């Protein structure tokens, strides 16, 4: 079966190419796929009949217990024949039906075959989840087929309607299947049916869910309306999907589970009510349609109700009749759709009010139509008659007499309607009418436009052409088959009985052509006569139907419901998505307080004893943290808030140190320093004061929420130390770090070895953050230029732009004019072409590029002296980090700070001299190095990111203890340096350049309110950015 599915898949994939090569003839080739399925099923006939059908089982996802299990029993055999046989015939029909120039034929062919394959999988799958998979595949492919003419609104809407309804049902079915599978302990369909779980509420729910799937798929009320709307699909699709295949999937599901659950009262009443209701409603509405396809569509709805009723009622006799009806229906309904397609092709219309004389012109088509119609209305000796006769017979002998009577009456009335609309269909399509409705009127469907009222003698009927005879043969084959199988009823009974025997109840039924003058035969005669009478008085029936109250149309109800759903969605969005960040955060925090705080209060034991502190020094640092945090909340000046934040951060570092975490303390101090600088770089642009929030009330809300969260987290902190139930995973870290990781600093070994994957993820985050910063500043580029000292533009000094108050004092003569012109470099000539000699005398190479009032000799000297020391220190941290506090993060931060001081002292040209590389290069190299080390370990036969320890003795130097994770740490180092460099290049250098070039307006508005004094003093105490902030004189 897998092979057959593969054939279908392959055919579907090559279909577009095939159609491009061969045109519509490609459908002949495509027809081979479903034909092979039918042939394969036929070849197994006798063995399936004996109960030895093939079973295939391929493991798919063994961990989940998902297997590709297929089984062919009698029901599957019949369905495979229908799906494959009708599929092949319809594809052959397509080869002549469509214009050679028709659009989208390749896609159509592919989807059609894919649908056929999905259907095949659906009816042969023995695993319930596999069945669901194919079920949804048929939904999707049918969506594509119904919406084939995607440029038409009606097609799109019909397709959307069909997929929404069938998918909703499919999801319900999935719930049912899972409930059943869990109750039964197996997902194998055959085993569930053999030993069905019974009696529990879960099973009842499962039954309802399963039937929801079947009802939506098979277009039973109240979901029947998608099927008539789906007539927007091309006629071959209607013939296949809406007569033989897809709508039968629901029937198949009912038939599959009926042997197990038909005795359940829930099942029974759903089937009876929905089956009878659909049967009657479909027939009633079919009587009144003008469009031939719509007559067939409503007829199909009606017949589906009948078939579901028969297979679902749960006795052997009804089951046999139901299966026979299923086969008969596939033959006559597909044939009728194909015939209507021929009429449509020949006349250009399907409106029976416009057709006249078609039967005389297209005799073979009319014959095929007549044979199929005869089978549909149950005229002997056709398959429809045999099946319906068996059904009526079986219904007459039901044990449950109430239900039996209801069903029998409903089926009789439904059959009368079937006779009436069947005759009307054939009459409408093929008869020669005395008068037809003019073309203009046929576009209207208002009351009073029926053929009886609006017909005109003068009106010309639709012109008739002669389509290819090839179109007739598929319909003819199906119609003749409907006669042929009826002539051998015993064979049918023989073949289908094994399925009926799986039902637990009732006497076995029989399929016979002539059973004598039984009450059932009399009933059949009465049905035929009444139906014929109804056809004869069709004029009056139609008028009466038009006048009668129609009730709400399900289609309208559905559309209104969908519209309401959209409105509700909009309302819900409007309520929940307010677009306010504080509101969202507040909601999240409230949930946090309620859920976590509630748990802390309600279901945990608070520790009996607490310690005040581990060491008294903790209280000192804690006081620093608390004081700075409280002051930060009250700060209205940005810079003040940032400085206070820094103080708090350094105090936290002290707490880390006291807690026994020197690595953390080191990193925290370094990060805090860099953070401070980054803040100040951006604060140059932002207004000096936070804006006031007018709403004072919201402040109290924020305060309350803050306190609530603070108390909750404090509660967690109280409870958490005592909540540990298991040994820490880190108990063995000391041993592992030393023997496997080759290092003594456990934290560092944890980072680069034990939990290296985490670190890898984290440096990736850093890389993304750095890239994000650069992109937000440069917008269309990854990075800006690297400014080298000798490229400095003479007419524009770095950080100039404001008058130099000291200009008069600097150097006598000539300079003041230049400075007045905008803070230019005083000695213009010298700096424009800096000679190597003069550069050699500078403390910093690019110091000259600064505006003179921005230079600080002391700062430059200190930086000159410190820079290399810092670099050496960072290298030391990098290499010693494995055994002592340090490591790649700390080392990278120290290097970053070294770059920062170079930048602060000498401006962006100095930064270019200090680090003449692009940050992106460092970031990429770093990540590559870290990941590369991991992969190298894999190549060397270890696991990803495994470390290797290499001990070498080198004369003079001594023993070298090299661990490969050092390279990983080197990667970390490079990423961190890259991050800092990116920040300096974008938020530092690029912002400087923009201020100088005038792209960013600075000065007045950015620094207008800045009061010199306390701010610059505080800044000077920590990071020395004082004096270069845009507005501070």
């Amino acid at each position: 079966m897998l092979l057959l599915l593969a054939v279908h898949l392959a055919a579907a994939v090559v279909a577009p190419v095939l159609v491009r090569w061969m045109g519509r003839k490609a459908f002949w080739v495509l027809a081979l796929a479903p034909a092979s399925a039918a042939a394969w099923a036929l070849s197994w006939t006798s063995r399936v009949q004996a109960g030895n059908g093939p079973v295939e089982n391929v493991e798919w996802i063994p961990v989940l217990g998902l297997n590709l299990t297929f089984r062919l029993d009698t029901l599957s055999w019949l369905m495979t024949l229908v799906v494959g046989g009708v599929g092949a015939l319809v594809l052959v029909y397509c080869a002549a039906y469509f214009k050679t120039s028709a659009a989208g034929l390749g896609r159509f062919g592919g989807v059609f075959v894919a649908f056929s394959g999905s259907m095949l999988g659906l009816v042969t799958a023995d695993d319930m989840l596999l069945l669901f998979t194919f079920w949804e595949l048929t939904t999707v492919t049918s969506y594509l087929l119904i919406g084939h003419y995607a440029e038409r609104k009606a097609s799109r809407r019909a397709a959307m309607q069909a997929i929404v309804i069938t998918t909703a049902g499919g999801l319900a079915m999935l719930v049912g299947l899972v409930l059943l599978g869990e109750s039964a302990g197996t997902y194998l369909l055959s085993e569930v049916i053999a030993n069905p779980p019974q009696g529990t509420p879960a099973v009842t729910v499962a039954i309802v869910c399963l039937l929801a799937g079947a009802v939506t798929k098979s277009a039973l009320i109240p979901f029947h309306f998608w099927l008539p709307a789906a007539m927007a699909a091309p006629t071959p699709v209607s013939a296949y999907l809406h007569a033989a295949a897809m709508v039968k999937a629901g029937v198949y599901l009912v038939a599959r589970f009926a042997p197990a659950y038909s005795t359940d009262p829930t099942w029974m009443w759903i089937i009876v009510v929905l089956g009878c209701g659909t049967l009657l409603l479909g027939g009633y509405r079919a009587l009144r349609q003008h469009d031939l396809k719509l007559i067939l569509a409503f007829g199909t709805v009606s017949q589906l109700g009948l078939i579901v009723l028969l297979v679902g009622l749960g006795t052997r006799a009804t089951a046999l009749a139901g299966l026979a009806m299923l086969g008969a229906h596939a033959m006559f309904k597909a044939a009728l759709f194909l015939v209507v397609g021929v009429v449509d092709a020949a006349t250009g219309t399907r409106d029976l009010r416009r057709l006249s004389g078609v039967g005389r012109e297209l005799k073979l088509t009319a014959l095929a139509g007549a044979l199929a119609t005869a089978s549909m209305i149950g005229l002997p000796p056709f398959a429809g008659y045999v099946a319906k006769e068996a059904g009526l017979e079986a219904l007459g002998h039901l044990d449950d007499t109430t239900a039996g009577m209801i069903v029998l009456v409903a089926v009789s009335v439904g059959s009368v309607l079937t006779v009436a609309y069947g005759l009307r269909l054939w009459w409408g399509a093929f008869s020669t009418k005395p008068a037809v409705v003019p073309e203009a009127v046929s576009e209207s469907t208002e009351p009073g436009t029926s053929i009886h009222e609006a017909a005109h003698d003068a009106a010309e009927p639709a012109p008739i052409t002669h389509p290819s005879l090839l179109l007739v043969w598929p319909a003819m084959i199906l119609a003749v088959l409907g006669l042929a199988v009826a002539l051998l009823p015993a064979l049918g009974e023989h073949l289908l009985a094994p399925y009926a025997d799986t039902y637990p109840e009732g006497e076995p039924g029989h399929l016979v052509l002539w059973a004598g003058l039984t009450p059932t035969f009399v009933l059949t005669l009465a049905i035929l006569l009444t139906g014929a009478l109804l056809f004869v008085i069709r004029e009056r029936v139609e008028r009466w139907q038009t006048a009668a109250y129609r009730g709400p149309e399900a289609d309208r109800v559905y559309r209104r419901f969908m519209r309401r759903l959209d409105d509700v969605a909009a309302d819900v969005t409007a309520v929940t998505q307010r677009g306010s960040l504080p509101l969202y955060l507040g909601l999240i925090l409230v949930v946090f307080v309620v859920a976590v705080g509630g748990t802390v209060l309600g279901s945990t034991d608070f520790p009996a004893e607490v310690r005040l502190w581990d060491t008294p020094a903790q209280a000192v640092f804690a006081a620093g943290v608390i004081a700075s945090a409280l002051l930060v909340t009250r700060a209205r000046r940005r810079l003040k808030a940032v400085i206070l934040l820094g103080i708090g951060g350094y105090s936290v570092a002290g707490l880390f140190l006291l807690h026994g975490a020197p690595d953390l303390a080191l990193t925290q101090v370094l990060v805090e320093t860099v953070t401070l600088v980054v803040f100040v770089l951006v604060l140059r642009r932002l207004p000096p004061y936070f804006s006031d929030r007018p709403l004072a009330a919201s402040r109290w809300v924020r305060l309350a929420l803050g306190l609530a969260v603070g108390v909750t987290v404090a509660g967690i902190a109280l409870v958490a130390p005592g909540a540990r139930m298991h040994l820490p995973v880190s108990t063995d870290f000391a041993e592992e770090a030393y023997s496997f990781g080759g290092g003594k600093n456990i934290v560092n070994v944890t980072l680069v070895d034990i939990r290296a994957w985490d670190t890898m993820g984290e440096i990736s985050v850093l890389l993304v953050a750095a890239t994000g910063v650069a992109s937000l500043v440069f917008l269309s580029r990854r990075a800006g230029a690297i400014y080298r000292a000798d490229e400095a533009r003479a007419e524009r000094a770095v950080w100039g732009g404001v008058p130099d108050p000291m200009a008069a004092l600097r150097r006598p003569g000539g300079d003041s004019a230049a400075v007045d012109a905008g803070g230019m470099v005083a000695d213009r000539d010298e700096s424009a072409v800096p000679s190597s000699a003069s550069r050699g005398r500078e403390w910093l190479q690019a110091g000259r590029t600064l505006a003179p009032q921005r230079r600080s000799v002391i700062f430059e000297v200190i930086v000159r002296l410190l820079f290399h020391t810092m670099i050496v220190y960072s290298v030391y941290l990098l290499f010693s980090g494995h055994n002592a506090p340090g490591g790649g993060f700390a080392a990278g931060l120290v290097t970053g700070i070294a770059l920062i001081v170079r930048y602060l002292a000498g401006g962006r040209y100095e930064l270019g001299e200090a680090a003449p590389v692009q940050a992106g290069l460092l970031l990429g190299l770093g990540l590559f190095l870290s990941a590369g080390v991991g992969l190298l370990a894999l190549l060397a036969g270890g696991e990803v990111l495994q470390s290797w320890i290499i001990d070498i003795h080198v004369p003079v130097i001594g023993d070298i203890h090299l661990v490969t994770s050092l390279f990983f740490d080197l990667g970390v180092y490079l990423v961190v340096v890259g991050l800092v460099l990116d920040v300096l290049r974008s938020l530092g250098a690029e912002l400087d350049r923009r201020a100088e070039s005038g792209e960013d307006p600075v000065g007045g508005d950015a620094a207008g309110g800045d009061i010199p004094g306390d701010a610059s003093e505080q800044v000077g105490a920590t990071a020395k950015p004082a004096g270069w902030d845009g507005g501070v004189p």
Partner: protein
Amino acid sequence: MSPNIVLVVTIGVLFAAGVYLLLERSLSRVLIGVILIGNGANLLFLVAGGAAGRPPIVGTEPEGQMSDPLPQAMVLTAIVITLGMTAFLLALAYRSWQLHRHDEVQDDVEDRRIARLAAVDERAFTDADTEIASDTLDVEAAEARDETDQGAPARETPREVRP
């Protein structure tokens, strides 16, 4: 194991102050709030990991007195990531200043538009496919025609040609 009250109080204050700032509209205040909360969370990690101990370095300290290295490793990366996020949010603040000359986080315009339309029961978008059309099934069916091959021309023509 008994908790350390000083640290517990510190954590509580950091979170309270952080949340207070987090709910502000100014992006730099939000960022300061996030950093405060981050500091608090880092401390919480250490507290949850156990009591203070000696630095977790093999050889220099007796093993039993070491503090737990695992939370430390996690916190270490958290600290550095906070730096990356700070830089990113500040770049956002700068961008906001570039565009609007302030760093306030405004309400989402699209969300507000939807709310406004929902209040007056208007649709945020219209899709002809989902409208309750006046077209009935019959009208739509009449319009649905396949691109069929008509075959031989209409009956008048062959009659003239054949004889």
